[in-house]
């Protein structure tokens, strides 16, 4: 690694003040499991690093009815995976966070970092988009909130502005008669990166029809993608095997995969069909209770 100046501010206000004062060329450090690899191997040479290590109140994972789940940007993947409220109320977050890297990586890495690194294959992104999460971003101008669906702008690119830091991820309260599921495909079971992934989240009305459907596809476009055609097909209908098949086929047309060393474009399209069908089936089963 090349040398850089290191800052470990004790508060968020101090962190954003450093970013403003020092200007471009800085990187914010949470767990470091992506940033250090980029600095060692991929030519990322920050002039300075602002570590969130010493910032108080960024490592929390709290749930409160009416306020939803709040994940501090410095909370580790393990902090999230092992949190009782997350396990009980947001199993889809546990499923996806548990797929990131190894135990060693989960003990260092953060959900916040997984989001801000903005890899198209980031496992925690599709479920959080499907759940309608909101990001609380801070700069020296104060805080602002942004739906996570609007956060990703390209591979490794986000709506974070110069001098802005992700402080919290807020996930709305779980809805009654709702269910979600996430699945990715990797050739190996552990320590791999998704060839393709899908998150499905549905809410059922009292008459059994789908009142709300979100299907988010990972690793088949420059950012996680909304399968809008598939979502529209579901709303207002009673879920059936045939409807799920049709939605899965529609999701394929929403995908924009490329061919690379992990898989060809056509293979990824096939995977999206299978993963959408499976996750949608499980989401509906869990919504029916």
């Amino acid at each position, binding site marked *: 690694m090349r*040398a850089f*100046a290191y800052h470990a501010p004790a508060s968020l206000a101090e962190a954003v003040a450093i970013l403003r004062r020092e200007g471009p060329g800085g990187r914010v450090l949470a767990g*470091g499991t992506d940033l*250090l690899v980029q600095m060692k191997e991929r030519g990322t040479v920050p002039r300075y690093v602002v570590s969130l290590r010493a910032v108080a109140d960024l490592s929390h994972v709290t749930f409160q009815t009416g306020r939803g789940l709040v994940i501090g940007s410095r909370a580790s993947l393990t902090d999230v995976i092992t949190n009782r409220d997350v396990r009980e109320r947001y199993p889809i977050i546990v499923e996806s966070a548990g797929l990131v890297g*190894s*135990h*060693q990586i989960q*003990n260092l890495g953060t959900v916040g970092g997984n989001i801000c690194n903005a890899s198209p294959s980031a496992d925690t992104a599709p479920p959080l988009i499907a759940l309608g999460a909101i990001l609380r971003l801070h700069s020296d101008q104060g805080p602002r909130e942004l739906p996570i669906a609007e956060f990703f702008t390209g591979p490794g690119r986000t709506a974070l502005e110069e001098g802005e830091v992700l402080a919290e991820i807020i996930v709305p309260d779980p809805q009654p008669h709702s269910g979600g599921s996430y699945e990715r495909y990797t050739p190996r079971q552990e*320590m791999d990166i998704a060839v393709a992934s899908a998150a499905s989240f549905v809410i059922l009305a009292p008459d059994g029809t789908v009142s709300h459907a979100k299907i988010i596809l990972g690793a088949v476009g420059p950012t996680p993608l909304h399968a809008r055609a598939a979502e529209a097909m579901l709303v207002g209908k009673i879920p059936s095997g045939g409807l799920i098949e049709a939605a899965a086929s529609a999701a394929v047309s929403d995908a924009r995969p490329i061919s690379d060393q992990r898989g060809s474009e056509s293979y990824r399209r096939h995977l999206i069909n299978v993963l959408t069908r499976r996750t949608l089936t499980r989401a509906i089963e869990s919504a029916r209770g």
Partner: protein
Amino acid sequence: MAKMIVNVEVNGELQELLTEPHRTLLDLLRDNLSLTGTKEGCGSGDCGACTVLIDGRPVNSCLVLAPEAEGRRVTTVEGLAEDNKLHPVQTAFIEEGGLQCGICTPGMLISAVALLRSNTEPSEQSIRYAISGNLCRCTGYDKIVRAIEVASKRMKANAAIASH
């Protein structure tokens, strides 16, 4: 770049170490403290050879900037033995042939010890899952898994004797 002091507890001893921000915890352990049991494999968090415990949790020390270790409690493979007596996991690795070239072994031992602290009766599947972030190119893993199973049984038996 300016040097800085990092205060960190390593294997029960408080250390005050002079380093630079772009060095890693792995560098601190190996170069400042000559604790060369912890190995560098890939340097990018894939192989697990550099696994140490920070505050009881296994992490890749190659992905931790040295100053990030400030105020933390680090355990390396050198800290597993107590009173000159090998940890039961270390003994079981020797007896069961759970190692060949030895490069992955310190990291494997740390992951195994972390598992057995939270799960005293792990299934074969949970053992394999616990070491999924530790790559071994020699053994084919079977003897490592068996060694951890043997260690867990022995530790459980020892705990039962101790409680009587």
